[in-house]
């Protein structure tokens, strides 16, 4: 649990191009620009797999690149995660029937989160980081002793009540809003 908490506040990312058309790569760079600024969440692009916690892989994995991608993955220190950005990396995308690509990064290394899109928007990439954090939490939850898990679940039900209340409030607000809008029309 603790470890994932440290990851939530500081996540170093290594970007690997396994034969993408560069569209996804530009989009990853755009995630770091002033408009989206992923660095405010502690997400930093690093130059070497040895420093990285997350491998962002793009592209359909050309045959030439397969071994190298595997090697880069193995060079990363544990615990490590893989994010696959773009349709190409997820399924092969537009290159699905190419004789020269393997069609997807999960053919060679385990992938934790997929970001669909050709190319996906920076928002989607940031959303994928949130999903990754959720997944880390779940993993940590599974590896915890049963007793503690039960306690945590009890807490969760309390939280559920809160969320139900909150969603009721939100619903009320939205109905009021829609009423107002229709009245204006």
């Amino acid at each position: 649990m603790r470890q994932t908490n440290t990851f939530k506040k500081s996540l170093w990312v290594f970007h690997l191009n396994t034969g993408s058309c560069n569209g996804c790569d530009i989009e990853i760079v755009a995630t770091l620009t002033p408009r989206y600024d992923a660095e405010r969440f502690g997400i930093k692009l690093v130059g070497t797999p040895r420093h990285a916690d997350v491998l962002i892989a793009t592209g359909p994995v050309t045959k030439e690149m397969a071994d190298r991608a595997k090697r880069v993955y193995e060079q990363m220190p544990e615990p490590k995660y893989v994010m696959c950005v773009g349709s190409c990396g997820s399924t092969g995308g537009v290159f699905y029937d190419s004789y020269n690509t393997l069609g997807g990064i999960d053919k060679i290394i385990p992938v934790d989160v997929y970001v669909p899109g050709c190319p996906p928007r920076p928002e989607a990439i940031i959303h994928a980081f949130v999903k990754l954090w959720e997944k880390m939490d779940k993993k940590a939850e599974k590896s915890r002793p049963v007793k503690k898990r039960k306690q945590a679940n009890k807490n969760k039900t309390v939280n559920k009540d809160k969320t139900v209340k909150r969603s009721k409030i939100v619903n009320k607000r939205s109905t009021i809003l829609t009423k107002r809008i229709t009245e204006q029309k």
Partner: protein
Amino acid sequence: MLSEIMMIPMIAALMLLLAIIVGLFFLGLDRKIAARFQSRIGPPIVQPFRDLVKLLAKETIVPDNAIGWLFNLAPVIALASALLLILYLPFLGVAPILSGYGDLILVLYLLMLPALAIAIGGFASGNNYATVGAQRKLIMMLSYEFPLAVLVMAVVWKTSSMFPDLQGFTFSTFMQHPVLTLVGPVGGFGVVLLIVTILIALCAELIKGPFDNPEADTELAGGVLVDYSGRNLALFLLSDAVKLCAFITLVIGLLLPCSLGDMFSSFMYTGWLAIAANVVFFFVKFTVIAILGLTFVRVAFARLKINQATKFFWLVSAGISLLGLLLISLDSMM
């Protein structure tokens, strides 16, 4: 008697802890302000602390073709020598703890040690990128050492020619008689030039901004640190923080050692208040130097090529420092 013996190590330990915290804090401030310069929001100021905790939680890899013991030793040496350096410098504006046991020459040598440790670590990791980075680091060190030596010469010469009976090479002498108060307007300009030289060397020493060739992320994939991970990388991060503290303290101790406490003492002297005022004033100077000398330069200038950087240090930076020395000596002739 015993308590007195215990006092000094206690104060030293506290000081080192403070140096680490202040250093990490200023690394965070640097990142935050750099982000604001680029109209980003930037990471929170405590980000380096978080990075540190995370790095400690990660696996530490020693590559197969590295020289294991040297590879693991280098970060320890880097951190230890940086910490030792703090004890020889007037950190927080108080006289250095180990002031009786060594002088400015020793400090100059200690200053080289963290840089050497990084280079050794780079060579020991057996990675081509790291080797190139380490070579660059050594070349860089050879280049910025000369302007630094000229600068120290100028300050020591001026102080000891004015006060021949005081020890010339110690920080307590500089603190008693700041150079800026010893010189006239011409010499004052010379001192300003010296400050410029040392600020240029600051970036090179900390491997930042236009002189980050040894670590160049975009061309050398992390350079000297390319194969470091986990605990070792955390140690390098710590040594980076302490080095930042040490070098800025060196700038303050050499060229701007004026303290508020002395001015205070004339009209409202109560021991603790004077010390507190001193510390606050020290941090004001520290912040100004960190932002102007490091963050601003880092954001404003792109990286130089290694041959350009070397040329820059040997021609421009050395030239400026020599001019400063000349102006100060002219000033004392007038």
